[in-house]
């Protein structure tokens, strides 16, 4: 069942704009993320990392190439199929993007409201357990404004994992955090994902967190370049 890799990209190209303004950002990218693998995507600004992440996350329609994510071919997939796929992916953004008018528990439960198999009690129960797992059991009824930056991002981690995703996509989750809390958040994410066998694809510029990766992929000018020497994972 888990033979095929969660993410399998072959010859993915993407360009913004039309005609003379056409600006390619991805050129024939091949990338594989294996089951349970934690892959960090690095590279300078404008190298296409973020576009790649939005394509894998089914947030953007494909143009060229083949991308099979969690068994779903994305080239030619319509909005409904992409929406269904997004429900099986956990997203963590640069900012926590929590709903300010909901408590931490309700925010996490939002990830479960799309699952018709769960009732309100089951949702809140699982959300509470997930908050325990990120060490915020005592803050479940706080709204985001009452939490610190690191705590909010941990709620976002809990939300991303609450729906039992088959893949976690993270975009510079430590960018808005100080060194200590940033490191805690990504290590927590790594531990939780690893214990559940969920692969992670994370875009980051942050050299302090490179050690969590199984593999580091560097991008430049829309292409995957060789992994930087000495950055191999443990």
């Amino acid at each position, binding site marked *: 069942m888990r033979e095929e890799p969660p993410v399998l990209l072959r010859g993915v190209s993407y360009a913004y704009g039309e005609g003379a303004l056409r600006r390619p950002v991805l050129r024939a990218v091949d990338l594989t993320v294996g089951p349970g693998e934690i892959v960090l995507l690095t590279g300078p600004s404008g190298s296409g990392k973020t576009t790649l992440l939005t394509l894998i996350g089914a947030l953007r329609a494909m143009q060229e190439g083949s991308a099979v994510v969690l068994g779903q071919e994305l080239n030619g997939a319509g909005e409904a*199929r992409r929406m269904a796929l997004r429900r099986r992916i956990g*997203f963590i953004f640069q*900012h926590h993007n929590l709903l300010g008018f909901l408590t931490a528990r309700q925010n996490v439960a*939002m990830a479960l409201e799309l699952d018709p198999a769960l009732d309100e009690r089951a949702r809140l129960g699982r959300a509470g357990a997930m908050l325990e797992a990120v060490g915020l059991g*005592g803050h479940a009824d706080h709204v985001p404004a009452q939490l610190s930056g690191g705590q909010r991002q941990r709620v976002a981690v809990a939300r991303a994992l609450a729906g039992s995703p088959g893949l976690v996509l993270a975009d510079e989750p430590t960018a808005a955090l100080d060194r200590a809390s940033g490191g805690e958040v990504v290590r927590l994410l790594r*531990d939780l994902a690893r214990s*559940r066998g969920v692969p992670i694809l994370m875009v980051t510029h942050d050299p302090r967190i490179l050690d969590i990766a199984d593999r580091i992929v560097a991008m430049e000018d829309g292409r995957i370049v060789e992994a930087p020497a000495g950055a191999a994972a443990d």
Partner: protein
Amino acid sequence: MNEMAAAPKLLPWAPERTGEGTAPPPYGPGGGGEAPRPGRGRRLLLPLRLAWRQLRAERARLFSALAGVMFACVLVFMQLGFRAALFESATSLLSAMRAELFLMHPLTTASFRPEPLPRARAFQTLALPEVAQAVPVYMAQVSWRNPETGARRMIQLVGFDMEAGAMRFPGLEAVAEALKRPDTVAFDIRSRPEFGDVAGLLARAGGAPLKVEAGNREVEVVGLVEIGASFGADGNMITNEVNFRRLVPQRRASNTDLVALRLVPGADPRAVQARLREILPRDVVVLTHEELVAHERRYWEEATPIGFIFGFGSAMGLIVGMVIVYQILFSDIAAHLREYATLKAMGYSDGYLARVVMGAALILAGLGFVPGAALSAALYELVGAATYLPLGMTPGRAVLVFGLIFAMCAAAGLLAVRKLRDANPADMF
């Protein structure tokens, strides 16, 4: 951060606890293609709950939105209330008539400006055995001199045979006998105050005859009746046929303005109406009581700008309310674009988020309507007492206004939903 350190050891999801191992997630919607269809209840209730939580979080914004809805609500209630009250008062004289059928000249547009019809038609109807009585009613605008100030003003004079019982106003029976005397009238106590405090003068006269000038003639006010002022007539007074002719000598005795037909008990007005239409010439139309009132009402609705003015006022209120609600919903979306985009990234559909916005609009409609309706009912009391207009809350109007406010908020919601397009999760990374 100290609670962090212990966290990994407490994993409730740890494989050794749940026995899941590294198996794929046991829950989570769908295995691939289509998303499962949620039930109708959760499709509507969960977005509604989210909308309510969002509205509740910002009290100031919620209250300004509710104030906007209330404002629209009160405005529409007042406009529709005035409209109904004015139409009702315009037909109060005709509504007070107690007869099954009426004869009217086909060119009469409104009762205050009647075209005369041959009085002989009244007696011709008696050819039918079902017609028990035919009562000619005379109407004219005559001048009235305010007994206190001497100022002149036109008043509606209604003349008819007091004994026929074709009219029923409060107070009529008490004055019917006195009105048989020459040059006597009964004054409508609900006439506008510009006609003078006739009731007060009558009380102070203490039985002595109260002489006033009407239609260039000295007449005696023998009592008071209650009819009500209208658009067409600022005031009313009633008298008998003969006195009417004395006050309006230029009118030909062979003409009348309206004929009230009373039928024998058990007669079918519709059948008699059809029969009368066959036998009477084309210079009269035969109307039932409802048709007569509706004819008068239609004149005020269609031939005057009154209906349009109040309809326009209502529309303005609804537009202002819609703009306020739209502003609130729009700024709510604009302030939460990032969060909405995150929800889309999590797999929430555009339709779900649209239902959240529409849910917020409908919550505002409901929460704004209740105090708005209560305030309107209080204002009806207040304004009705000040203007003598028959203002009051009716269930039908409450339902209508609720429908309008609901539609107003829904329209504002539909406009605001367009803003959701800006919540694009691809722009989030």
